[in-house]
Structures are given as structure tokens and as C-alpha cells.
């Protein structure tokens, strides 16, 4: 089970802005540890954001996304007090799902 995300969602002029901060190492697989052994690649591959069961963003990541990935996007609609659900899965099959309440 992955570590919790931080999701902030705000409604303005009929558009919901979603900011997501995920906790993940995002190892490229190219780094070496102190003993010179390669650190295996470990990164989020897929992110899905949904509002009321409908997909509002569908992302795929590669090794070049920064540690603790950050995402910002906007979708039309949304209502204060409703939830935006975000889930991710990484290349090892680990996953995480969290909700952010629209403010």
C-alpha cells in the first residue's frame, strides 16, 4: 500500500482545479547506492482522477517525473463538498487511492 496523497480541489467559476501531491520515490533505475549497486527502477506508471465515477484525468508517467509527483489540472463542473478520487499504480504493482473534497 502506497503512502497517502495530498489532494486539494477548489471550485471557481464552474471549474474545479485539482492539485495532487503524491508520495513516491520515482527511482529512475539509473542511480547507484553507496556500495555502487544499481537501485532498481520504481516509479508510478498510471494515475487516474475521477469525479463521481467519471474520469477527469488519465495520466501515464515515465522515469523522468520528479520524486513526490505533482499534478495540477482543471475540469468543468464539480460541486463544493463532493469528492475527487485519485488513484495511482506503480511498476511494482503497488497502489494508492485517496479522495480530495472540493472546497
Amino acid at each position, binding site marked *: 500500500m502506497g503512502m497517502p496523497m495530498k489532494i486539494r480541489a477548489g471550485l471557481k467559476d464552474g471549474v474545479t482545479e485539482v492539485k495532487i501531491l503524491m508520495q513516491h520515490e520515482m527511482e529512475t533505475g539509473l542511480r547507484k547506492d553507496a556500495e555502487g549497486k544499481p537501485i532498481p527502477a520504481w516509479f508510478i*506508471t*498510471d494515475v487516474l482522477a475521477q469525479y463521481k465515477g467519471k474520469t*477527469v484525468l*488519465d495520466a501515464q508517467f515515465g522515469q*523522468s517525473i520528479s520524486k513526490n509527483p505533482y499534478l495540477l489540472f482543471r475540469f*468543468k463542473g464539480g460541486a463544493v463538498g463532493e469528492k475527487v478520487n485519485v488513484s495511482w499504480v506503480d511498476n511494482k504493482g503497488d497502489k494508492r487511492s485517496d479522495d480530495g473534497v472540493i472546497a
Partner: protein
Amino acid sequence: MNVEVNLDRRNALKAGGGLGLMALFGAVGLLSSKAALAEWNKTAFSAKTMDEALAAMGVSTAESNAIFIQLTVPEIAENGSIVPVSVTSTFPNVEQISIFVDKNPSVLAAQFNIPAGTESMVTTRVKMGQTANVVALIKADGKFYRTAKEVKVTAGGCGG
């Protein structure tokens, strides 16, 4: 489960999220790792050059356009491990936004599928091993467009 894995995720998306995989995601609120991995474009994300990556994504031509694609990156990044990238497109019917770093070991950083109702705008952060071009690729009405900007990655701190 097997049936769902074999479903084309793109088609599932277009069907409006009420079928197959999307129903599963909606109900569980979690991505099915198996399904997701099957979908993840391994060839494109492992590509070492822009040409390889574009080929893996089925892009034969991508017209250069800096007017309808706004790519916002810092001119200088104090640290290559976080480089903020924002892509906004004013093309109608944007379906996909992709971000590349042309000198990274794997050039494709991220690909975003933009469903109807979601603005054609996304901000994220990428790693850059050295000074390089950040490339934004947009798919709109089935056609591809691109723009690029250079980000200088500098030596930081006292170096120790």
C-alpha cells in the same frame, strides 16, 4: 477479469466510463495494476530518442506550433530534480498532452489523456539530467502538434 484486461482502455474512456475497466475503477476506486501495466506504453516510455518515442506513440508528423500550445518552463532550473512544466493548449478538441525531455535517458516523461470536460491544461514536475529541451506534444482532432523550450540546469550551491 481477463475480459476487462483485454479491453482497450482508450475505448473504455470514450464509452464514457460506464463500462468494463472504468466500472471496475469506479467501484473499487483503485487502478487495477494488471490492467494498467498492460496499458502503459512501455516502448514509448523506454525510448532513448525523440524519434523512437514518437514512433512508438504512432506519431508520423507533428507540426511545430508555439501559438496554440503554451509551454511554461523556467529558463533556468536551480535543481534538475524538480523542473516545473506547464502545458496549455488552445487547440479545439485536445485529446492528449505529452511531455518529453529530449536529453534524458528515457525521453518521454508523461502522457495525459484529456477527457471531454477537462481543460487542455496540465502542470507537473520533471527531472532533468542536464540542460535540455522540454517538448510538449498535443494531439487535437487526431493531429499532432509540438513546441519546445530550453531549460538550463545549473550547478547549484557550493558544490560540496
